[in-house]
């Protein structure tokens, strides 16, 4: 048992750090630090910085533009991106549809789509959930009926993150309704968001933001060529996509950054007041979350070590999503509590815009978005399979119940 990274891995970490020091755009960094809303172009520009360096898609096979990194290098890379507080990589292209296309797509689809995904020239969104199909995704109703050399698509997708920015959507739709199991007859289809009959309706989230949407399809004609793999196998493909990205699923490094910042803020003495860190109750709550996160970090590392030494991830890897989101939400709560009475003002026009400086914010600048962030953050235990669904999976797959 050894806590240290090998010399070559440590050198790799230095290489990543050097790169980030000189290539992480200062304006995006400042927005991230101030909690200002990022625009489409911020995400794209950052992903293109990584692309230029050849680091856009560490998980992809080398022949499609991947890095050929070891599991440990991928872990280090994702950790360093988080420690540098870089924007999250938008997953829909690089982590989701890309791997499905290079695994199951035709040669023509690979050539047509992969280069644009890799270079973040095309923005993708994900058409999975429907108003009547959330946790029970296989009960989805969207239909894709054949008509000559096209599918005609009808139905509604929901919770479609950043669809307002998207050029393309990948979706699960029913191509056969006469099936024994509801998981059958579902196909994985790619659609151009400019197609006639697609309309996007914003859903405003609890923090007042426009992050998710409903996407309606009314007689949308999509060429048969846009079917990925075989018709009716979409459920299998879609599941692969959900388990593809392991590195970073627990969000350990991001939570560490947030917790360290909170400790710093809580140690500062406000004028005429007392530092929150002087309160033993708050200090213990902080310590309890810190320990939970430390445990999670080592659970993550155990998984990494198993994979890096040629084994499969152990049963402990199944808990990363649940524990990771629990820790994120616990940190959200602590920030809100730390903000005191300044947890109340709701002023997105002051904190979300890059043009308003800190002095114009109400209360301590860092406090401005703590409650909206807490409110929005309730989503993390809901999306990507609720934590209850995750527990069902562990119960069945790991405990054999």
């Amino acid at each position: 048992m050894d806590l240290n990274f090998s010399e070559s891995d440590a050198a790799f970490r230095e290489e990543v750090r050097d790169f980030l020091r000189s290539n992480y755009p200062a304006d995006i960094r400042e927005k991230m630090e101030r909690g200002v809303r990022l625009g489409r172009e911020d995400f794209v520009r950052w992903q293109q910085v990584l692309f230029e360096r050849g680091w856009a898609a560490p998980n992809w096979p080398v022949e499609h533009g991947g890095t050929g990194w070891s599991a440990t290098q991928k872990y280090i890379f994702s950790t360093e991106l988080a420690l540098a507080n870089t924007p999250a990589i938008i997953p829909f292209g690089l982590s989701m549809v890309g791997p499905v296309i290079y695994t199951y797509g035709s040669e023509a689809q690979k050539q047509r789509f992969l280069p644009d995904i890799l270079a973040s020239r095309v923005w993708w969104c994900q058409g999975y959930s429907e108003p009547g199909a959330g946790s029970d995704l296989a009960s989805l109703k969207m239909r894709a009926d054949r008509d000559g050399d096209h599918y005609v698509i009808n139905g509604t997708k929901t919770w479609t993150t950043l669809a307002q920015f998207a050029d393309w959507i990948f979706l699960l739709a029913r191509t056969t309704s006469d099936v024994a199991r509801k998981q059958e007859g579902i196909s994985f289809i790619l659609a151009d968001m400019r197609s006639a009959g697609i309309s996007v309706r914003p859903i405003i989230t609890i923090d007042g933001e426009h992050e998710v949407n409903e996407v309606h399809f009314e007689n949308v004609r999509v060429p048969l060529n846009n079917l990925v793999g075989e018709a009716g196998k979409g459920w299998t493909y879609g599941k692969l996509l959900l388990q593809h990205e392991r590195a970073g699923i627990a969000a350990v490094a991001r939570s560490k950054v947030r917790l360290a910042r909170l400790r710093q803020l809580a140690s500062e003495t406000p004028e005429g007041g007392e530092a929150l860190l002087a309160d033993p109750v708050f200090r213990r709550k902080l310590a309890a979350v810190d320990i939970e996160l430390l445990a999670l970090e080592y659970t993550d590392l155990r998984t990494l070590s198993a994979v890096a030494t040629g084994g499969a991830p152990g049963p402990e890897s199944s808990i990363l999503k649940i524990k990771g989101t629990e820790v994120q939400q616990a940190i959200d709560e602590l920030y809100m509590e730390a903000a005191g009475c300044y947890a109340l003002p709701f002023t997105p026009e002051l904190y979300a815009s890059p043009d308003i400086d800190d002095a114009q914010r109400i209360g301590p600048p860092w406090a401005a978005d703590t409650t909206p962030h807490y409110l929005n953050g309730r989503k993390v235990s809901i999306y990507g399979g609720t934590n209850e669904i995750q527990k069902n999976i562990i119960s069945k797959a790991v405990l054999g119940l």
Partner: protein
Amino acid sequence: MDFSLTDEQSLLKDSLERFIRSDYDFDTRRTQLRSELGYSQTTYARFAEFGWTAVPFAEEDGGFGGGPIELMILMEQFGRGLVIEPYLASIVMAGGVLRHGGSAQQKARWLPGLIDGSITGALACQEPYGRFDPARVRTRAEHHDGGWTLSGHKAVVLNARDAELIIVPARSAGDVSARDGISLFALAQGTTGVSLRSYPTVDGLQAADVTLEGVVVGADAMIGKEGHGLAILERAIADATLAVCAEAVGIMAVLVDKTVEYSKSRKQFGLPIGAFQALQHRMVEMFMEHEQTRSLLYMAAMKLAAGDDDAGRGLHALKYQVGRAGRRIGQEAVQIHGGMGVTDELDVAHYFKRLTAIGSSFGTADDHLGRYAG
């Protein structure tokens, strides 16, 4: 970054696993627990034969030079078997003080017996109002005729009744909680002025409150330097804390497995109770708590082994988690086993008791959270 064991460590683990599985059955353990001694001397002699009692000691002292990782491996298996032999008190605690602070003469006098299992030891590391702080020592040590006179009261000393050697911290200078001024003394069994009030503990082990009244010892009984015993004591307690945490993780693993298995066979309302989602999710919680605790155990053992500056904080994190998760896993295991879970007949109840006892040994979850928080 590597969590795999060396070949030697794997061998140690395999031999322990084999022994616990085939030679340490629950019914024999129960019979031994009810015997006058409270454990099996024959079994303890086998621990010595296998070399397990020698693991933590240096090679020049007749040991194998094992460290925190080896201790963790041993104790996790002892937890799985719910071992009642006095390895913790004798080898980890009393042996630990000698290992970290004993002179060559003291080691020569005591270690061969501890290692071959012919004698056992005890460490009187707490006092009635000490609240798990080893620096809170009221017991006095006064100079006397070239030696020392000791007087005071030691609380819940594990294995004191049967130990040939009791190590006693006593204060020769300073206030009740001063870090300086504590000296350690090796007392042979039967020393005049030492009286014991012995009792079983909730988990079936033996302990005693020890009263020292004008106990006269020679200068050669002092372990380490006068007034500088605390650092030695703390190292032994750190080892013991890691040891009981590893034991607890072994117990947790057994409780998770036994509960899941039971829920597959126990039928109510025409279904195995494991088919009910309310119970499934609770068992998943038990599983997650166990894995998170195991992660912290590896972290703490690796940091101790590496001599990391952060090792002390790592232990606080671990012991907090063991206390908190141990309570939850133990309670859930009992709850899901239903009425049987609160009987003396079922092994689960005994695992729960030991886990509960560990929660009140070397500091509770709250004590360690407080120290971690600073």
